[in-house]
Structure formats: structure tokens, C-alpha cells
């Protein structure tokens, strides 16, 4: 009994500090953590992975640049539905997709890099 109390205290302390950490993060990144990992797109080796990501309406997609060169995430629709600023290594961009549809995008620095988000 005496052993479990410190553990409980530790676990609670850990939970509180994690939540605190989460709150100090970008809010949409926190939302992404609550969703499944399928709402993430990794940018690496001049490609978006997965190239096609399927999510439900209301999902927030977070693109994270793991490449050693900057990239952008830009909607190909006209007018553009979303457009990130330039993302250096380690930076991310999030967008919440509320409407059903197919959203094609590309990297405006390296236009051969394309991907799409399918909302259904």
C-alpha cells in the first residue's frame, strides 16, 4: 500500500505534466494527437507519405517536415483552400477539413511533390 501511493502520485504528476505540455503546444497539434495517426502526413525524401490520406469530415491533418530541405503544403484548387508558410525541418502545418471532398495539394518549391486528402 505504501509502495503504490508514491506510484500513483508519480503517475498523476506525469499525467498533469503531460497535459500541461499538451496545452502549451499548438492547439491543432494537440487535436491531432487525440485522433489516430492516420491524420498525419510525413514529408520526407521529397514526398508526402501517405500520398493519399483518407479522413472523416472534421479531421485535422498535420503535415510534418522530416526532410533536410524546406517544403510547403499548398492546395491546388483555385482559389487555394489552404497554404502553409515554408516549413523547415521539424516544422509542421495543420488544417481541419470540414467538408467532404478530394483536396489535391503540392509543394510550391518542388512542384513534382503532390498529394491529396480525401474527406469522406
Amino acid at each position, binding site marked *: 500500500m505504501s509502495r503504490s501511493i508514491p506510484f500513483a502520485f508519480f503517475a498523476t504528476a506525469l499525467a498533469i505534466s503531460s497535459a500541461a505540455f499538451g496545452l502549451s503546444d499548438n492547439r491543432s497539434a494537440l487535436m491531432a494527437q487525440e485522433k489516430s495517426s492516420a491524420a498525419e502526413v510525413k514529408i520526407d*525524401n*521529397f*514526398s508526402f507519405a501517405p500520398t493519399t490520406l483518407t479522413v472523416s469530415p472534421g479531421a485535422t491533418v498535420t503535415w510534418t517536415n522530416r*526532410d*533536410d*530541405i*524546406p517544403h*510547403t503544403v499548398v492546395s*491546388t484548387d483555385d482559389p487555394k483552400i489552404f497554404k502553409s*508558410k*515554408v516549413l*523547415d*525541418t521539424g516544422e509542421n502545418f495543420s488544417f481541419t477539413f470540414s467538408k467532404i471532398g478530394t483536396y*489535391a*495539394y*503540392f509543394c*510550391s*518549391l*518542388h*512542384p*513534382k511533390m*503532390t498529394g491529396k486528402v480525401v474527406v469522406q
Partner: protein
Amino acid sequence: MSNKKIDELLHDHNHDGVNRRGFLKCMAWAGTGALCVMKGGVLNAYSLSRISEIPAKESAGELSFAQISDSHMGFNKAANPDVAGTLQIAVNKINALTASPEFILHTGDITHLSKSEEFDAVEQILKGANPKDVFYVPGEHDVLNDDGKQFLERYGKASSGAGWYSFDKKGVHFVGLVNVMNLKAGGLGTLGHDQLAWLERDVRHLKHSTPIVVFAHIPLWSVYPEWGWGTEDSAQALSYLKNFGSVTVLNGHIHQTMQRVEGNVTFHTAASTAFPQPQPGKADSPGPMKVPAEQLKGVLGITDVSYVQGQHALAVVDSSLA
């Protein structure tokens, strides 16, 4: 290597006296330090290490300038943690040339992230170069976040549209083009209708004997479309130049030297002063290529270009920073 005998003129298909095989062979030597000079359409090659032994009249040009490219100020990853240092070495290399270039062409990706302090840092380093005039064209890394506004404010005073312009030096006509704006998904570099119309007007009344130098960031020939290494409407631009006897196209973007001769046009891409990239298809993607630290300077470089009045083509010489 003593003064090489001039190559025999073989198979003069184009009937213009230009020894293309000799020229191409010379282009291959250029990376190891050869100076190729056209005299009356015939190519002479001189090893750079023996250049002092050649009478100055024979190897001198009437106009010479340097090309640097892809300085990527702000890049700090493993492929080169000190791009300011290697840019400084490139400037030292330019300053060590016996015939000081009159000016410098920078074919873009001056900065890595279009940041103000990155532009400032490059300008500061280039202030130490003997040639005081620098002419820039933007790379895609120079027009981020603001559609190229900052680039135009700094370097676009004499330009039109997204920053294209032309100028003349000693009878040679220079054209700076911008092919990194409004890139379309899945596409290549693009010049666009307005710029092409401007180019057509710009060269329309020039004598066909005027040597032309076109400089732009992304290659104006199809180097490797899979990696975006090409410009979708460059053929139209080149069509306006087809009657000129000497056209030299200088590009950057691919971070390695490459050359091609097509009719009256010599295409040349410069090495980066920051980091190398893989050869077409030799890697999964065209990203920064890590080489052992002691080899880095050997894969970065500058380009020295000379023009001798009356000769067919400009002499283009690459040297590494090693």
C-alpha cells in the same frame, strides 16, 4: 601537357566551322581546370595550370565574368553546416583569378528561406569580391512567403514583371529570366506568357551577330523532368534566339555542373557554393548530398566565363573550391 594541337575539323554537319566534338571534349575537361578558347571557330584548350605560359593575347578575352549559384544562405544541415564559409571561399577563388571578372552573375537560391538576414549575409560576403557589380535572378528559395516581393525590392529595380531584365556589356547582351514563380503542381519551371512576350521584344532588333547570354535559375533544357529539372516553356524562349550566332545559357538549381550544346546554344549549369546534389536518377530524391567533409570543397564551385570579340562561343570554365 604542352599546348594541344588544335582538333581537326571533322564532320562539319552545320557548315559553320564550329568543331563541336572539340568543344564537347573541352567542356568535359572544364571541370578539371581547362580553359577553352574559340578562335575563328576552332577550339584551343589550355590547361589552367599552364596558363601563365600562354601569351596573354592568345588566351585573353575581352569580357569575363563569374557565375556563382545556390548559396542557400541559412542552410545548416549535415551536407554543409557552414554555407557562409564556403561562399567566402568562392569569393576568395574569384578574387584569385588572374584576369579579374568584371561582374558576377548569381543564378539564384541566394537564400535558403527568403529571410532578410540571409539576403543581408550574402550581400555582405559578396562586398568582399573584387567585381563590385552582382546581377541576380531568384531561385524558388528566394521567393517564399511573399511572392517574391522582398527579392524585387532588393534586386528588381531595373526589372519588369517578376524580375526579368536585360543589359549589355561590351557588345554582349545579357538576359536575366525568372522561372521559379507560379509553379504548378506536377510541373517544371515556367517562364509564362508575359515574360516570353517581353523576351521576344527585347531581342527582336538585335543584330544576329550579338552574343547572347541568358541566365535563369532552373535549367532551360530538360535535364531530368522527374526531379523538376527543366522549364516547360523554354523551347519558346529559345525559338526567339535561334537566329543568333552565339547563345550561352547559364543556370543553377541542380547543384552540379552540366553542359550541353544544341545547335547555336551552349547550356551550362553551375555547381552550388553550399552543397551538392545527386546526379539525375542516382538517388531517390534530389536532396542535399552528404560527402565526406574533406571532399566537400571539391564538389562546390564557381564558373568563369570569357568572351573574345568575333569568336563563336564564350569560354566557360568551372573550378571547384578545393
